[in-house]
């Protein structure tokens, strides 16, 4: 389905007001900058940008479908062709690495503002695509669009403070948080703030509920599953995890580990620095591991599950039509199959019919030997190996028990990206596959 005139006429009104609000936003920014008598170059820049947004708004509101600003079809097709689970994950990883390495550049307010404007413009241009708009404007998905912008803002806020503090610590100054540590009172300062927030959020939710209808569907039936069938937006990361694992692991063990791991963090942490103030330099390891787990393994998976997974849980580009008949070759095989059949060219060990229980167990163990060896080495051999190599300092400072908890939590967290990579590269389904007792890994 390609963008047609009817759709564009529907969306034009929204896009017009959207561009006008972006224009007003930038005009206000220019005014504030001008008032502060600094960075006059940027004032001109935002004024010009504001004007361009007004031009886009007038084009959108012109009444002619052809004039609604949109991304050229070539760009859309290119984006669709380039998007896929592998590129998506590699791309987000590269993006986060870049944001981390060049954080001193990106936290400058003007750079951040430029990025925000770029995001808004790309969003607006993409909204003129029917497929994109139908997904983004779905009432379920609106919170996730909000989440993208909110997360970007709060990450920027925290990172910019951390960068300032790191710079001060390098110069031997105390962090910003220590300069003004005058305490405020819970009552009335905090409680009043909370009350005001509560009123504001309630008002927002009321307006939201009135204007965006609940996405109700037909009555539920146990033999009819909607296609695609999606979890609530906050669980879409879990649903994406389930693509790579058996339910007991991705649905029970990993989520519990997330909760208990987060609870264990304060007890594992031995770094006394960075307490009560933002800092990245002083706690690089904790920062990177946490951000990887949060952004890469939770947020990007939610975004992937929301916007890029279509019917039959196939991967679709952002401007691609969600066809339930899209054919994607996803054949995958278990490790025992690869090992016995692929490597040694012999059938899987199979207990003869009517064999005793002991023989059957022995056969299964022999069949799964490669997977058991791999997993055993991963979970039992790697922690001590890491302790004497990469984490030598950590081990010395943490002691045996804390180190073991930390390393095992980390290794289990990394099972997810490792399994994803193995699925994409080797078409590996399960490392250990014992369907006889529903135990697969």
């Amino acid at each position, binding site marked *: 389905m390609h963008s047609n005139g009817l759709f564009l006429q529907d969306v034009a009104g929204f896009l017009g007001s959207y561009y006008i609000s972006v224009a007003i936003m930038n005009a206000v920014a220019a005014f504030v900058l001008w008032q502060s008598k600094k960075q006059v170059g940027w004032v001109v820049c935002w004024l010009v940008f504001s004007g361009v947004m007004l031009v886009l708004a007038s084009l959108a509101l012109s009444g002619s479908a052809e004039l609604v600003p949109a991304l050229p079809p070539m760009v859309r097709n290119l984006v669709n062709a380039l998007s896929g689970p592998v590129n998506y994950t590699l791309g987000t990883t590269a993006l986060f690495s870049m944001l981390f390495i060049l954080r001193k550049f990106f936290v400058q307010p003007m750079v951040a503002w430029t990025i925000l404007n770029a995001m808004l413009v790309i969003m607006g241009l993409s909204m003129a695509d029917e497929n994109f708009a139908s997904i983004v404007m779905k009432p379920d998905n609106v919170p996730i669009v909000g989440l993208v912008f909110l997360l970007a803002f709060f990450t920027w806020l925290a990172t910019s403070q951390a960068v300032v503090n790191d710079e001060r610590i390098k110069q031997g100054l105390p962090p910003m948080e220590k300069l003004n540590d005058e305490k405020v009172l819970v009552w009335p300062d905090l409680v009043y703030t909370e009350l005001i927030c509560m009123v504001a959020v309630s008002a927002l939710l009321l307006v939201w509920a009135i204007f965006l209808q609940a996405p109700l569907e037909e009555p539920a039936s146990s033999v009819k599953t909607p296609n695609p069938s999606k979890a609530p937006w906050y669980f879409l990361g879990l649903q994406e995890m*389930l693509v790579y694992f*058996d*339910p007991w692991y991705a649905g029970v063990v990993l989520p519990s580990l997330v909760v208990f791991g987060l609870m264990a963090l304060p007890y594992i942490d031995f770094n006394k620095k960075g307490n009560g103030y933002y800092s990245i330099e002083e706690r690089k390891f904790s920062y990177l591991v946490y951000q990887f787990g949060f952004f890469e393994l939770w947020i990007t998976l939610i975004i992937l599950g929301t916007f890029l997974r279509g019917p*039959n*849980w196939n991967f679709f580009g952002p401007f691609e039509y969600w066809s339930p*008949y899209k054919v994607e*070759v996803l054949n995958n095989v278990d490790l025992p199959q690869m090992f016995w059949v692929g490597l040694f060219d012999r059938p899987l060990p199979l207990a003869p019919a009517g064999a005793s229980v002991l023989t059957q167990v022995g056969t299964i163990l022999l069949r799964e030997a490669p997977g058991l060896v791999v997993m055993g080495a991963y979970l039992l051999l790697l922690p001590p190996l890491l302790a004497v190599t990469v984490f030598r300092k950590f081990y010395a400072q943490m002691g045996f028990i804390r180190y073991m908890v930390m390393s095992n939590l980390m290794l289990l967290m990394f099972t997810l990206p490792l399994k994803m990579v193995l699925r994409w590269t080797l078409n590996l389904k399960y490392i250990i596959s014992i*369907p006889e007792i*529903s135990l697969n890994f």
Partner: protein
Amino acid sequence: MAEKKRLSVAEMLAAARAEKGAAVPVAAQTPTIADGAEKLDAAESASLDAAAAVVKPAPPASSNASSAAAKSAGAAGKPAGAGGRPSIAEIMALARANNATATPVQPPLAADNKPKPAAAALKPTAAKAAVAKPAAAKPAAKLDSASILAAARAGLKPGPVSKSDAPPRPVQRQKNSAADAVASKAAPVARIAPPAPLRPIKPEAKKPAAGVEDRRGFLELAVGSFMAIGFTTLSVTGGLFTLGLARFMFPNVLAEPPSRFKVGAKEGFPAGKVETKFVAQYGVWVVNNEFQGQQQIYALKTVCTHLGCTPNWLEAEQKFKCPCHGSGFYKDGVNFEGPAPRPLERYAVHLADDGQLEIDKSKTFHEELGQWADPESYIPA
């Protein structure tokens, strides 16, 4: 303040000494502390005098006075904290100075105690400080956290910190004064018990007149007691409820389809076809397909073996595809893509007497357990 929270031992001692000096005029009533006051060295009493003296002339703003007092007290104990910020010792001294001015001085309890020089010297200044109290205790115009903290420490001390700090309890005080009296060979003080409140007179139950039959016992006779009535009713209700609940488990009409049903003659299922028309009602696909070299008709359960969604049969791609996590199954039900760990399950199927296929959903056959070889799991086409 965060970095100053931990006091060194020296600071604590200094604070304690300043505190002790300031506490004398207030707590002169107990002989032990008065004895301690005797041992006050000149510097401490001097600092105390200075503290009280600064308060005495009723300065315009109490914050000035208190800071001066704090400074002098701090100077006596330990040098003031760096950066102009009051140290804990200073705060404590200030709080004590305020306390001294705010609390009226009580005369010593034991009359035979020798007048202590230090206490005697302190008394007039303390009394004068008490006179100066209204001006000094006036709330300051602007409060910083240090003064709030000081005020909190001075006024709202939550309780005694140590045993010696604790005010003597009434009984102990009596004992102490009694001991003092014994020491001064005076008559022991008699303990006066507070008068007990009058108790209401218990109304006496009316005794039934002789010869009149008492009918109050009838219910007790009938069911034991009112408690027994209550519990009997409760247990009877509970029992009836349980019985009703048990009955609820066996409804008169079962809305769910029967586990055994007929789907038509064998000829209705041509080779290579997946029949999807029974999915909505029975949750089953009837397939006529070649499996392990044999043409079979079998019934597949429409539940994905990954997480239980209902897959769709895609005719063009000749596969079952689950919409939840993308598991895919061949026409024979064997999993080949996505996360499903094992093949779809088969239901038991057999030819009924009338020649129709009858499917029995109460029995399932798992391929991974080798049960698809079971002749009950298929019909040779």
